[in-house]
């Protein structure tokens, strides 16, 4: 009945349309009957009421017919849902990591992106983990959604996209301050473009730019979701902005006591691995998770290098 943008759209939209159709029939039908009764049997037109106590025949009819209809709807919903749980063996596996408030997609060859690139007409399975609270991966155009639950690595979803294009991807489970900004794009491209993108080096820029200090740190900040809370332009999102912070004095709270420190390599590293140790005054506690095990020392150094460049520009 419908085709849509993924292999599930047709089934879901057909079930939707049939249920809405039956519902509209009853809504309009019952409303019409009620209006008729109000006109026909109001006090003016029918001064004397008839005392009718009921009818077992009618009770059975309006129990059994809706029962059959709802069982049919149940079957519609279930039969169009079953395929969503049956992942084809040849599906491309993408690991999804959700955290406040960013998405990260890791491909079999180690490529990491914050946009979901998929080839058209190819089955893709998303194996999803959350690092902090519950999120929910939702691609409305594909009619699919599944929660990403911390401590529950087995949640998954799969799809085959049908039409190349860009589609919205949202977080559907409330996850705090920037929940409504936890969205990204699904890029559906033809197999050729996908293969070219997939084979390309993680950094697809010429060496003169790549060699610029801080470039890799910038990429890491995007991939690991740092920029969801730490801006590069001085804007306060959730945590302190990267801009102009290095080498500056800040007041932090350590074990409930305030003290002044200078932001240096050691402090930034500690903030990444033990975010609760020193909270900069005016920022919330418990907003950041530890990146222990998620970033190597080398990667941390690159991020520090990037933060340094943002402070130098200012000077």
């Amino acid at each position: 009945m419908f085709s849509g943008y993924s292999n599930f759209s047709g089934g879901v939209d057909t079930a939707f349309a049939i249920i809405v159709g039956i519902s509209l029939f009853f809504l309009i039908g019952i409303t019409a009957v009620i209006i008729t009764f109000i006109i026909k049997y109001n006090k003016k037109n029918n001064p004397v009421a008839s005392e009718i106590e009921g009818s077992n025949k009618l009770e059975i009819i309006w129990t059994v017919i809706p029962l059959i209809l709802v069982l049919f709807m149940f079957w519609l919903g279930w039969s169009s849902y079953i395929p969503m749980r049956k992942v084809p063996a040849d599906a491309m596996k993408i690991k999804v990591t959700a955290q406040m408030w960013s998405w990260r997609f890791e491909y079999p060859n180690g490529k990491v992106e914050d946009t979901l690139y998929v080839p058209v007409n190819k089955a893709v399975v998303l194996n999803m983990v959350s690092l902090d609270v519950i999120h929910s991966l939702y691609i409305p155009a594909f009619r699919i959604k599944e929660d990403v639950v911390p401590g529950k690595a087995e949640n998954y979803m799969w799809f085959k996209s049908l039409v190349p294009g860009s589609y919205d991807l949202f977080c559907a489970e409330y996850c705090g301050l920037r929940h409504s900004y936890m969205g990204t794009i699904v890029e559906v491209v033809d197999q050729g473009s996908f293969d070219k993108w997939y084979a390309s080096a993680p950094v697809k820029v010429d060496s003169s730019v790549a060699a610029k200090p801080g470039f890799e740190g910038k990429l890491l900040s995007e991939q690991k979701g740092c920029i969801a809370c730490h801006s590069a332009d001085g804007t306060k999102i959730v945590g302190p902005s990267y801009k102009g912070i290095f080498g500056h004095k800040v007041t932090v709270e350590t074990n409930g006591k305030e003290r002044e420190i200078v932001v240096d390599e050691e402090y930034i590293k500690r903030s990444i691995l033990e975010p609760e140790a020193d909270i900069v005054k005016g920022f919330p506690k418990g907003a950041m998770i530890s990146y222990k095990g998620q970033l190597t020392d080398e990667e941390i150094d690159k991020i520090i290098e990037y933060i340094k460049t943002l402070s130098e520009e200012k000077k």
Partner: protein
Amino acid sequence: MTGNSSTHRLPSYLEYQGKYTGIRAWILSTDHKRIALLYLYSQIFFFLAGLVMGLFMKLELIAPGQQIMGPQAYNALFTVHGLTMIFLFIIPGLAASFGNFMIPIMIGAKDVAFPKLNLFSWYLFIAGAVIILVGIFSGDGPPDTGWTFYAPYSLKTNTNVVLSVFGAFVLGFSSILTGLNFIVTIHRMRAPGMGFFRMPLFIWSLYGTAWIQLLATPVVGITFLMVVADRMLDIGFFDPAKGGDPVLYQHLFWIYSHPAVYIMILPAMGAITEIIVTFSRRTVFGYKAIAMSSLAIAFVGYLVWGHHMFTSGMSETARLVFSFLTFLVAIPSAIKVFNWTATMYKGSISLEPPFWWAMAFIFIFMIGGLTGLILGSVSTDVHVHDTMFVVAHFHYIVFGGAGIAFFAALHYWYPKMFGKMYNKKIANWGLIGLFVGFNTTYLPMFFLGFMGMPRRYYDYLPQFADLNLLSTVGSWIMASSLILVIVNLLRAKKGTPEEMDDPWGGRTLEWTIESPPSLENFEEIPVIDREPYELKSK
């Protein structure tokens, strides 16, 4: 009794002088009618507070980007809006106010079984409300978890979750004790001759409700305590980092909170039944079917909570079973709608304001119920789960259903409770405005949800802008109509006993006594010798 009542009227419960005066005559009164009014006034107060919060939310959503507040304020606002509307207005709902007032009168008793416990329940209600209020204005700011308190976010956020959760825990006890009180009252206090199948259908609906209150509420009470323990003692029931399970929280929460929807809607259905029977001026169609459907809803309603969790990663078997049972619970609701319609057949319908309110209820409730079918079916739910579609469905049931029934009941029993009559024309105009405003506010949300706009979004993409604007405009129409309705009720005028004792020609017991009733309702406990909706013998 109606004709000669003016000759020797006892002082009404509003005039009665006990040993206390002033405000103490109210807050120390164990009269079920005064307690009912204490609930009624507090509930309407909380409803108006929740309404104002809702208006601010809609104003923020009038266009993409920041309008009048930041994201943290918005998140706190939708949480407190939910807490207020759900725990302080609609869970006590029609049961605490109209149930308290009407149960003893409709079954021919002088009061509920445990009048002091009844007053204590109201104190618990107020204590819970005060704790939640303190939680909002103290500590590290109002909670920002949503009224569902989902773990582990509710364990991680720095906002004042503990007090809100504890307040809800205390409110739970108010609800449990009220349920207990009603069950015992209905079992033990019925007038001679009033068998179970001679009870008015409002009482049947409250009876089903009371069992849910008694049996389901403790589950959420324990769950809320577990959240408090997790936050204060660091136990980790629901924290995966400590070996806990966040999905367990959802199960425990919805085991109560789904039946809680029936706590809200069942008494509403009961009141609507009374109204339709009275204004159709004939006996009810299918008495037993309606009575039994109330119990069926209360029972099956326990077993459907998993439909809130179709995307949580539950096993396929669980999704199958919960979807199936959810569809079954649609049947008793459908039976009620059919019997209401049939009750109008060959009636002699008197087109008074409460009747129109009941009609608005049926129409809006049907939309709420029918869109529930989409949420019960697994594949369609996966698409619209956690979107504006759910927000729309929920408001159609809880506000358009239970909320409108609350006002329908208020218009129906107002002359009985206060001995006053409001301006009927204004009541109808208020309803028309509310009906238009309500649908303008919430109907667009179904489309927004289908288009993919998730719920609890502070900001949204441009494609959602037009419908959100329409919805905000609707909220203004709705709010102004509600103010009109309430002012109209407040300006009601005293009528003579002849006009007020039985203004609608009702057939249940409350219309055989004075308006407002005397302290003990009946001078003499009546003996019931007729069927529930049989015409009163003159």
